Every structure is written in structure tokens, then in C-alpha cells.
């Protein structure tokens, strides 16, 4: 449910509480109007409406490879239960460990923010103008494969997202199994996640507060 639809439903509930009757026709009319406006709004963000959940799943002819990898991953339980984000998390941790050892973690985070700044300029800024600050979180979390392929799940609240930290369990495993990384979990927060999100936010003209933890909370302020 988008925020506009939610607002309409809130209005409806409010009316009921006040003892006012709302006819089905009026409700449907209002809902259709808001939906049309929402659709129009989204379609005005170039390509945003096209690229995400476009109903093409059933037409894909490459699902067999994906399913095989998924089964292989979730059958791989030793020395720990592997998940779909395992390789991606390890890549991020390895790259961060290298950057921290070399003392270039800040530049590394800035490069990442600069590289993806194109997307922020193209989609997210316009989204914020049209829908408010929550569009920043929408664009950085549930809307992008960079997040939904990294976080096992994303809890969505207005102005806030919560994600289980994917880095801690795997960093623990790496240190237990190999012990070859120098970074700590705090380095992951302070030298990767927080600078990257803050950088994206600055590009988009908003501010974020990050509460790192096993469940990481990101709020737009």
C-alpha cells in the first residue's frame, strides 16, 4: 500500500470514528483518483516504474539456473548455514579489509557513493521531491537489488528501515574459520555502512540516522 492510499484509508477510518458514513462509491472514487495520481507520479520518475517488479517473473527463461543456485546454497550448511547473500557479503568484507589495511577506506566509500550518485540524481532526488523523504529509503533499500540481494529482509516503516546485519554472522565465521581479516564489526559500521548511507543521503539532500546492531535501523530525519 502506498502512503497516499494509506492516507485515504486513514481518512475513511477517521470518518467512521466520527460516525460519518462514507458510501462505497465515494470510497472507490477517491481510491481510484489517488491510485491514478500515484501511478502518474511513479511513471514520471524515468525508468523507475519500469525496472522493478514488472511482472516478468513468469516469462523468465533463466529461472532454472537461479533455482539450482538457491538449492545448492541452502543445502550448504557446513560449517554454517549459507544464505543467498553469502558471496556478496564476503566480497564486501574482503574489499573493506583491504581498504582498511591500506588506509583508503574513506576514499573507497566515497568512490562507491560517487559511482552510484548517478542513480541518486536520476531517480531518488525526483522521488523525494514528489513523495517526500521516505522515497530516499525506498530507493536505497527495497527498491534496489543492491539491498534486497544483500539483506535477508527489510522491515519498512514510514521514514525508517530495519535490516538484519548481514555482515556480523559472516565476519564471525571468517574469523573463526580463517582468522585472516583485520577489520572488526565496528569497522564495518563506521568505515562502510554509515559513510555510504550518509554519502547517499547528502547527495539526495536529506539526513539519516543510523543505529547499527544485529538489527540495523536507518531513519531519515
Amino acid at each position: 500500500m502506498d502512503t497516499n492510499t494509506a492516507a485515504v484509508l486513514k481518512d475513511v477510518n477517521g470518518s467512521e470514528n466520527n460516525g460519518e458514513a462514507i458510501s462505497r462509491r465515494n470510497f472507490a472514487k477517491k481510491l481510484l483518483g489517488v491510485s491514478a495520481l500515484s501511478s502518474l507520479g511513479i511513471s514520471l520518475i524515468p525508468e523507475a516504474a519500469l525496472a522493478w517488479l514488472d511482472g516478468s517473473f513468469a516469462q523468465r527463461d533463466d529461472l532454472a539456473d537461479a533455482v539450482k543456485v538457491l538449492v545448492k546454497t541452502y543445502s550448504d550448511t557446513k560449517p554454517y548455514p549459507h544464505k543467498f547473500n553469502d558471496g556478496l557479503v564476503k566480497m564486501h568484507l574482503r574489499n573493506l579489509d583491504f581498504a582498511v589495511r591500506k588506509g583508503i577506506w574513506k576514499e573507497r566509500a566515497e568512490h562507491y557513493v560517487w559511482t552510484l550518485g548517478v542513480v541518486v540524481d536520476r531517480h531518488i532526488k525526483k522521488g523525494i521531491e514528489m513523495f517526500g523523504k521516505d522515497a530516499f529509503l525506498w530507493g536505497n533499500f527495497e527498491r534496489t537489488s543492491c539491498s534486497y540481494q544483500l539483506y535477508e529482509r527489510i522491515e519498512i516503516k514510514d521514514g525508517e528501515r530495519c535490516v538484519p546485519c548481514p555482515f556480523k554472522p559472516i565476519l564471525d565465521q571468517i574469523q573463526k574459520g580463517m582468522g585472516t581479516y583485520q577489520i572488526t564489526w565496528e569497522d564495518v559500521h563506521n568505515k562502510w555502512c554509515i559513510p555510504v548511507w550518509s554519502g547517499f543521503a547528502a547527495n539526495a539532500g536529506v539526513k539519516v540516522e543510523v543505529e547499527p546492531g544485529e538489527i540495523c535501523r536507518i531513519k531519515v530525519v
Partner: protein
Amino acid sequence: MSDRERRDFTKQTLKWGGALTLIAAFNPARLVFGAGPGGPPGKAPGGAPGGAAGGPPAGMGNPLKMMQENQFLQRDDLDDALKSMYMTYDSSRPYPHKFNDVISKGQLECLEFIVSKGLEKEYVEHYVTTMKPILQRIKQQVAKEGPDKALYGMFEGTTCSYQLMERIDVKQGERSFPCPYGPALERCKQWLPERFVMKWEEVCNKMCIPTWQGFANEMEVKITITPGETCVVKLA
């Protein structure tokens, strides 16, 4: 019943009885589930995921035990995985997203940065050095089971590869797979203009080839690498 009818009856009985015996012996259900609880274990071709490589999965022969010991079926976090997969494959524009979308793009973004700093050699050395404990373990398996184990450890045996490559074609002494970086780099250049100057050949020569050669050296095996849209890594 005349003698002739009795003879025909016996003939028919033997014919159909024999056929039923053959069907029972090669019954697909029997092949999958074995002879049932308490009976001798059946054998499935190839083995199921979670079982020992190449052999039948644990608990084979007892359907209930087989299900209980199948690692995939015991997972309680498949819903998150399926949702992520659905979100990925339901996004087909501007290009069809795949499960390895972010890992390949993320790796390219980092390599672009590393190459711009001229640190690619140290970057590869760091990768090989931090992997040493695992490479030493694989080296011991190579000594026991042969050099193909090195390819197994580098490719289908690790999430870092099988979650990166869409599929891995496994042959004795050889692995081949579609290069995930070539298409990803093209998309990065198209959709993130002026952010990527690196060429595909640099990905091969500055990351993939030296990394795999570094792994192979640690395991004391020799490999040859033929990069391309389908990349081939062979024991030399």
C-alpha cells in the same frame, strides 16, 4: 479346461508374472525411496543436494529419514531467499536482473577504484593471503583425492564462485562458466556513465587470472585460463 488351454494359461501367467517382477525391480519409486523402512538402501543417480558429493544423500532408503536429513528441506529461512529471488527475477528492465547482479557489479565497482589507484597487485595478493587457511585445507584434499579437488574448491565448492557465476560446467580437470563480468561491465558503462573506464580485459588480467593463479600456486597445482564470454579453467 483342455490341455491346450492349461498350457496357454501357464504361458500367459509366466509372461505377465515375469513382466511384473521386472517392473517391481526397476520401479522408479523403489529406486527413489528404497525398499522402505528397514529394507536395503536404494540409490538415486547423482545424489540429492546436501548429500556427499556424487553419492546418495544421507538417510537414503528410509523416506522419513531421508527428508529429515536433507539439509535443504530442514531450512526454515527459505521464504526470505525465495522473496529475494522473486524480486530479482521480476525486475527485467532496463535489463533482466539475475541473482549475481549485485555481486558482479559490486566487484567491478571496487576493482575500478583499485585499478584507478594502481593497487591491483596488492589487491590480489590480499585476496590470496586471506584465503590461505582454506587453500591449505584444499591442498591436503588435493594430495589425497587428486588435483581436480583444487578446481572443486575454487569453483562449485564455494559460494564466492557459484553465487557469482550463473552456472558452472564441471568436467574432470576443467571448469567453464559464462563470464559474469563482461555483461555487467557493459551495463555499468551504459547505466552509470563516466563511472567506469576499465576494460573487460583488465578484469581478466588484473583480477580473475592472477587470483586463480595465486590460489593454484598455494595449492601446488598448475592451471591454464582461457578468458572469454565462456571462461575456461583447466588443470595444466
